[in-house]
């Protein structure tokens, strides 16, 4: 029951969806649409369970006075403030949007911009032409870096055309080859999941 029922669900839902793809009849399309809408409903709960777990982990950290537990209080406080602002004031209330614009936006934007410094450091320390392949990679990178900026156009007005050719021809060829590989891998993985051969996503104890 604990294994058969979930495997039956994945098999029936999956193959029913596959079959309806080839049947244009209204009943088939409507039922397929209904399953897709249910999927969206269930997917919404993935977010709720994620937030629930975040709260649980941080409450646990505070209770057990684990390292940096004080920051968990900050995290939960701001989570609480945001929830109150949203659920009491409304999704488009001034307080809720104020918190979004002045806390979430600058913090998110700055967090990812830190990578500019690390990529600069890596350019100096790690980007070395040690093999012919690495040299090719390095040359392509430098050409793109120079050709994609306004100064590149001033250095040589055909630079942008060269970059566009690199992107359209060798880059497209390699990316398309990789894409086919990924697609074939995804297809085989999808079939393995539907047939119940691949079960790791279900958690432990379902191998046999």
């Amino acid at each position, binding site marked *: 029951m604990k294994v058969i029922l979930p495997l039956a669900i994945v098999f029936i839902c999956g193959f029913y969806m596959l079959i309806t793809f080839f049947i244009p009849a209204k009943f088939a*399309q409507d039922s397929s*649409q209904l399953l*897709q*809408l249910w*999927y*969206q409903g269930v*997917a*919404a709960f993935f*977010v709720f369970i994620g937030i629930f777990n975040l709260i649980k982990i941080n409450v646990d950290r505070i209770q057990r006075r684990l390292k940096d537990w004080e920051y968990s209080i900050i995290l939960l406080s701001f989570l609480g403030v945001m929830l109150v602002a949203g659920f009491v004031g*409304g*999704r*488009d209330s001034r307080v809720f*949007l104020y918190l*979004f*614009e002045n806390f*979430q*936006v*600058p*913090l*998110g*934007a700055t*967090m*990812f*911009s830190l990578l*500019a*410094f690390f*990529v*600069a*450091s890596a*350019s*100096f*320390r*790690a*980007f*070395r*032409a*040690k093999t012919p392949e690495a040299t090719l990679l*390095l040359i392509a*990178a*430098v050409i793109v*870096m*120079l050709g*994609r*900026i*306004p*100064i*590149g*156009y*001033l250095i040589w*007005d055909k630079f*942008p055309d060269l970059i*566009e050719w690199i*992107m*359209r021809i060798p*880059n*497209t060829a390699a*990316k*398309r080859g990789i*894409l086919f590989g990924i697609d074939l891998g995804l297809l085989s993985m999808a079939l393995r999941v539907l047939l119940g051969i691949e079960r790791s996503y279900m958690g432990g104890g379902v191998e046999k």
Partner: protein
Amino acid sequence: MNIFERLSQLDRRIIFLLVAIAVIVPMIVPLNLPVDITKPVKNVYDKIESLPEGSVVLVSTDYDPGSEAELYPATEAFIEHCFRRNLKIYMMGLWPAGSELGNIALNKIAKYYNKKYGEDFINVGYRPGGAVMLLSLGRNFSDVIKVDYQGIPVDSLPLGRRVKSARDLSMVMTFSAGDPGIIHWIIYFHARYGVPVCGATTAIMAPQQYPYLSSGQLVGLLGGLKGAAEYETLVERRGRGLRGMDSQSIVHLLLVGFIGLGNVILLYQRRKK
């Protein structure tokens, strides 16, 4: 210890400082470098120019604050172009924060062009469910979208009533920073319903879109801040994209210098061995 040995042990914070200077100085003292226009960006512009007045463009803001610096300037420039051409904008977001960032741009530009909410533009907020949602959306919008971001039923808005399925859209423009995003609009929405798709992506994602550009599944592409700067040039709007291009140029030169220096040190170390 000679200069190469000293350089090889350079404190990373000096590199950080040089990068910061290379960004800040050109912002304070602009060089106003001319921006060249690439074909994928021109294609987006031409597509918008080719649409008859009153056509509906679905704008999906599939990003968050982490990529706001790259995609928000493009969002503003694109919305401005649409409103200038009197096109209707149906906005949504596959990422939760994207719908809000898009809303900020939408309201700002709409105010300038005296556009009316519900008639000329609407924002239906965040839509979860990724790729699967796109399939059901294309078949029947009202199955997926009940209310807009303010909780107003979409059926009570003229533009909401007008868009019933993918057939009512003239094109899709996605501002995409990852998954779900541009790939799903192409291989789920375009492939199933045939709606032309254009995109603006972070620069990291841009090279992956070229197979779709060459197959015609993607009409045009704005890649990163440079793409935004190109679009701003086309629509004659000096926004954050163009303002950032001087700094972008100087930092790229600096990093090319770093790469060159790193390799000179490598040569020196090899010769010494």
